């Protein structure tokens, strides 16, 4: 984790980056994707979503793409920096999960979620 020295991301930012990893997307698409990723646990309101996007644009994690659909919605795309930040955050989360397992906070294998072994 030392090699990637980005700061921890807030859950909304991390999930927006995850949504954009699948390809460029407009705001509404990001909102739906995040709700799907988290089983509706994280529902981004419009203010949170665009507030995050504004800050992420400023930080260079995402950029506006030139695509525009007939409804003139703006599309966003993840940058290399954004990919690096998302990977670092995923790494952090994975380490947290490992730590939780070693303290027996989590089952080794969750039958409903893990397809094979952990």
């Amino acid at each position, binding site marked *: 984790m030392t090699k990637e020295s980005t700061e921890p991301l807030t859950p909304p930012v991390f999930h927006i980056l995850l949504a954009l990893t699948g390809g460029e997307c407009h*705001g*509404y698409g990001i*909102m739906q994707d995040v709700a799907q990723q988290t089983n509706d646990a994280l*529902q*981004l*309101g*419009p*203010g*949170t*979503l*665009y*507030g995050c*996007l*504004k800050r992420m644009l400023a930080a260079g994690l995402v950029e506006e793409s030139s695509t525009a659909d007939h*409804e003139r*919605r*703006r599309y966003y795309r993840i940058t290399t920096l954004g990919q690096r930040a998302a990977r670092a955050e995923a790494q952090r989360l994975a380490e947290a999960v490992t730590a939780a397992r070693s303290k027996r906070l989590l089952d080794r294998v969750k039958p409903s979620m893990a397809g094979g072994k952990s």
Partner: protein
Amino acid sequence: MAPSMLVRFLCRIYSVLLYAYPREFRLEYGGEMAQLFRDHCSHLARAHDRQRLIRFGLLSAADWLTTTIKERIASVWSAGRLHVKRNFVTEWALTILIYLFATTTLMQAYVVPTGSMEKNLMVGDHMLVDRLVYSDPGPLGAHLLPYREPQRGDIVAFLYPEDVRQTYVKRVIGLPGDRIRLENKQVIRNGHRLIEPYTQHVDESRFPYRDDFPTSPEFDTTPRGLDMFAHHITNGEVIVPPGTLFMMGDNRENSADSRYWGFVPREYVVGKPLFVYWSYDAPTRDLEQWTLTHVLDVAAHFFTRTRWDRTLFVPRSEAAQEQ
């Protein structure tokens, strides 16, 4: 209420609320936020998912509350760093103004204290009232926003004419110019007998004043009711004067309404009940004022005496058929 009306109403509110964001943020993202909100609302409405639609509305309201403050702080912060002089007092004043506007002008919470609208509204229903829909839009607003006049059959919240500190909820039976009388509990409007599926009758017996209105004033006729008897009855029928409404409760034998206290001036109309957000089984006197006993009672019986099945119930306006 049709889902599209609810969606239109929510979008209308949301586009007003966007003004609480800092100007730069609103100009940059406001349009897309409004569109996202509209898209998701119509998506849920098409799926006939009223619960999730209202939940999304509430989520967006909470989201709006926190992010407006956040963006304001961010804009003041960046202004300070860039040494740009900005009048942030006006900016904050605008936000606070819109907060006040949202909570007092657009909507109002209301609790049903009596059973006069049963079975449609129960004692203890807490609901939100849309204050915009019947408000006077002025010459310009009429073309911009879907305001409308109260129609026959609408459920309407209004100030009680004899005591404007109280708000009542009843159904519009007569518009200006309508001729109204009752014959054995049935309303006859402009000579046509009304078929009113929304009414409830709890008492078999027949009281002339109540069931064959209008007869002659009685002890419980109020001063405004007396005025109605004195000036607005022709050939045994009440004629609704211009600029007023004739209101009746659905629980016909158990409702103090226009039969007793006369017409409701148009300007006393507050709005249209939207939906019940909490229904709690409590006696009338506790609902009119929050007392310590009522607070303790709610704390002790919140789960058992809340009528969960009535949460998000939408009272329906319904036009009666004429025979």
